């Protein structure tokens, strides 16, 4: 992606230039550059940590120091492990589905200038509520395709509603009690974890392990095109893509979307033009919570097949995805795909080369670090003689400033 001279970026810029305006174009370039730089920093990190790790066959020995990890080999195995076979591609798309939902959930609030860290809590409650709904109602419907569809639809509905309600809470607290949303959403994440653990342990547990009952097979969306073992269904993936596209058009064309963006970009102007700021805040949060809850539902129905307290940090990954996508729901799709590749690639890496899968988390942090520094990117760009400096000053900051 990097290192092929000025031609590729130039051409890329020309192609993209027809599609998007200057500031969006700059954001896209910054995202790509961040990824390239993060991979470079990650390579150095792999080299250094490979000198500390112990292994049987180091790839390089320099002056008595053995280097265990070959960065190029690592990235190759990662990519291959993420998209090399229908099975691994299914795993990657499975991650991508969750990340698109979580990413769009975060993006709508960021567009309103709200800093929402609460998607993880809504994800937890959505998943829990979806699993509980099925556990209590599975015996009431026939065990066939139609009954399964009913169960699935009902479970997802409950998951979305639970997420929406839990999402509305910090919205109300911010709008009517002026309670800082960064803090309330972080606290609500911790509370969701504790409450969900208690709920499963005390009320929903079946058997020895702290987990809910299995989702009946007929309510699990069928795996088509991809092997069943990858727990990925195109029937979930396509609606998820539509949600991202829908969110984009909602933000662009609907009244609520206009108000959300106006509140984010020009809060004062929004007030003057008669936007009810409090209502917009609550609605934005509710919408975001709905999407976070749906992500939880997808996790339960498609990925795990039940709910248990230690769930992955999908909500936090959603923040990363949204930031990388400059909070644009359409941009969330490629950003989520990228993180899907990194995450499932890292797992394959762990199994094949023994490089800790936690590498994915490190790359996540470094990417965001670079995305946070548009100024740094412009400096590098100027030093390399890339791009024009005309569209620089305010472009990178406008999306995230409050």
């Amino acid at each position, binding site marked *: 992606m990097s290192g092929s001279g000025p031609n590729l970026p130039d051409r890329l810029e020309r192609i993209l230039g027809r599609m998007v305006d200057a500031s969006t174009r700059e954001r896209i370039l910054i995202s790509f550059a961040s990824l390239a730089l993060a991979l470079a920093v990650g390579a150095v990190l792999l080299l250094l940590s490979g000198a500390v790790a112990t292994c049987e066959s180091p790839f390089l020995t320099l002056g008595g120091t053995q280097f265990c990890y070959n960065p190029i080999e690592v990235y190759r195995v990662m990519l291959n492990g993420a998209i090399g076979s229908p099975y691994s591609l299914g795993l990657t798309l499975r991650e991508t589905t969750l990340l698109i939902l979580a990413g769009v959930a975060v993006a709508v609030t960021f567009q309103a200038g709200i800093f929402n860290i609460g998607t993880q809590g809504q994800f937890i409650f959505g998943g829990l509520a979806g699993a509980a709904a099925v556990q209590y109602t599975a015996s009431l419907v026939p065990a066939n395709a139609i009954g399964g569809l009913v169960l699935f639809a009902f479970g997802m509905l409950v998951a979305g509603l639970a997420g929406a309600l839990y999402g509305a809470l910090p919205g109300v607290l911010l709008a009517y009690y002026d309670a800082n949303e960064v*803090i309330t959403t972080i606290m609500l994440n911790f509370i969701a974890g504790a409450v969900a653990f208690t709920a499963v342990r005390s009320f929903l547990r079946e058997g020895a392990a702290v987990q809910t009952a299995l989702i009946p097979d007929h309510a699990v969306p069928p795996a088509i095109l991809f092997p069943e073992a990858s727990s990925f269904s195109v029937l979930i993936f396509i609606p998820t893509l539509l949600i991202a596209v829908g969110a984009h058009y909602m933000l662009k064309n609907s009244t609520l979307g206009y108000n959300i963006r106006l509140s984010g970009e020009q809060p004062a102007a929004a007030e003057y033009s008669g936007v009810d700021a409090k209502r917009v805040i609550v609605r934005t949060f509710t919408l975001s919570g709905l999407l976070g809850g749906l992500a939880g539902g997808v996790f339960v129905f498609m990925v795990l097949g039940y709910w248990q307290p230690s769930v992955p940090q999908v909500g936090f990954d959603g923040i990363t995805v949204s930031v990388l996508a400059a909070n644009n729901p359409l941009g969330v799709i490629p950003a989520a795909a990228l993180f899907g590749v990194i995450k499932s690639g890292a797992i394959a890496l762990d199994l094949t080369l023994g490089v800790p899968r936690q590498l994915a988390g490190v790359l996540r942090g470094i990417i965001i670090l670079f995305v946070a520094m548009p100024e740094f990117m412009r400096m590098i760009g100027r030093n390399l003689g890339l791009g024009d400096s005309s569209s620089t000053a305010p472009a990178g900051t406008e999306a*995230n400033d409050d």
Partner: protein
Amino acid sequence: MIESERLTRRRIGLLAIAVLLVGGLLATPYRSELIGILGVGFFNTALTLSVPITLAGVGGLYAEKSGVINIGIEGLLIAGAFTSVLVTGISVDAVGAGSAVWLGMLAAVVVSTLGALLFGVICIRYKADQIIAGLAVWFVFLGLAPFFSRVYWGQINSPTVATFSEVPIPVLSEIPVLGRILFTNYPTTYLMLVIVPVAWYVLKFTSFGMWVRASGEHPEALDTAGVNVNRVRYISIMISGALSGIGGSALTLSTVGQFIGQGQTIVSGDGFIGIVAYLMGNYNPLATFGAAALFAGLDAYQVRMQQIGLDIAPELFGAIPYAAVIVVLVLFGYTRIPERAGENYESGDE
């Protein structure tokens, strides 16, 4: 006028909730056990638990007072917690357990300070959005610590290493009750008990403290007075890093002697609670310590409640401190952040 009336109503509301909660607890059949928890040992534990929260809070307060919101404190605590265990484990054979823990703490301070400096450069030199950059700092260390754990120890949790031991202070530890609570404790706890009043004094009465406050409120005025605003901000951010380093090492080296890398690591939110503590303490180090001690007390209390075997699901009590934060924030959510916090300052002559 209206503001203060609202405040009074909120205070009454808070008091009512507190009375209800205490009353509710006392009405249970576990009355005597619940009161019995509040012994000397309980307060001693609460004080120990308050160390990372307080130090994170006081550090974060300095950064924010100077105009830089440091939401990456959680990450800096993780860096400190990991480094202290790593260095203590490495150096214990060479220098012995007694010195190794101090080396561990020192290394934690160095690493967390460097991490904070990196954050400072990103925010000040490269004008990053402070919230996003702070999150990035959290994510980086949340990833790095378990990654290095796996690389170095082959597993996500470290083996146990040497720890600080409780050092009774001569004479003072003989004082009944207070001697056990305050003066029979870990060195890191004593450090905190010294740092808090010093931080308060420095912020309030020294010229450096005045610069920090001015840097967050009226950077132009500070600039005009010939003080380099960004240098003040860099120093304040590095203070937040150094204190997080001590806090992180207190978390691992004072009791468990282990780094746990699962989930959100052993730090599990202490940095964020620290941020809440200084907001509740209205940027006053002494009040920040008070708020941190309150959270730590609630935390210690729920642990003890589980031990006496209340048949209500005990994990739920783990959520009490977090819920308390929200209640307090709703009732007292009026904290005024420094005028220019979150903004970059560009001096005219650079």
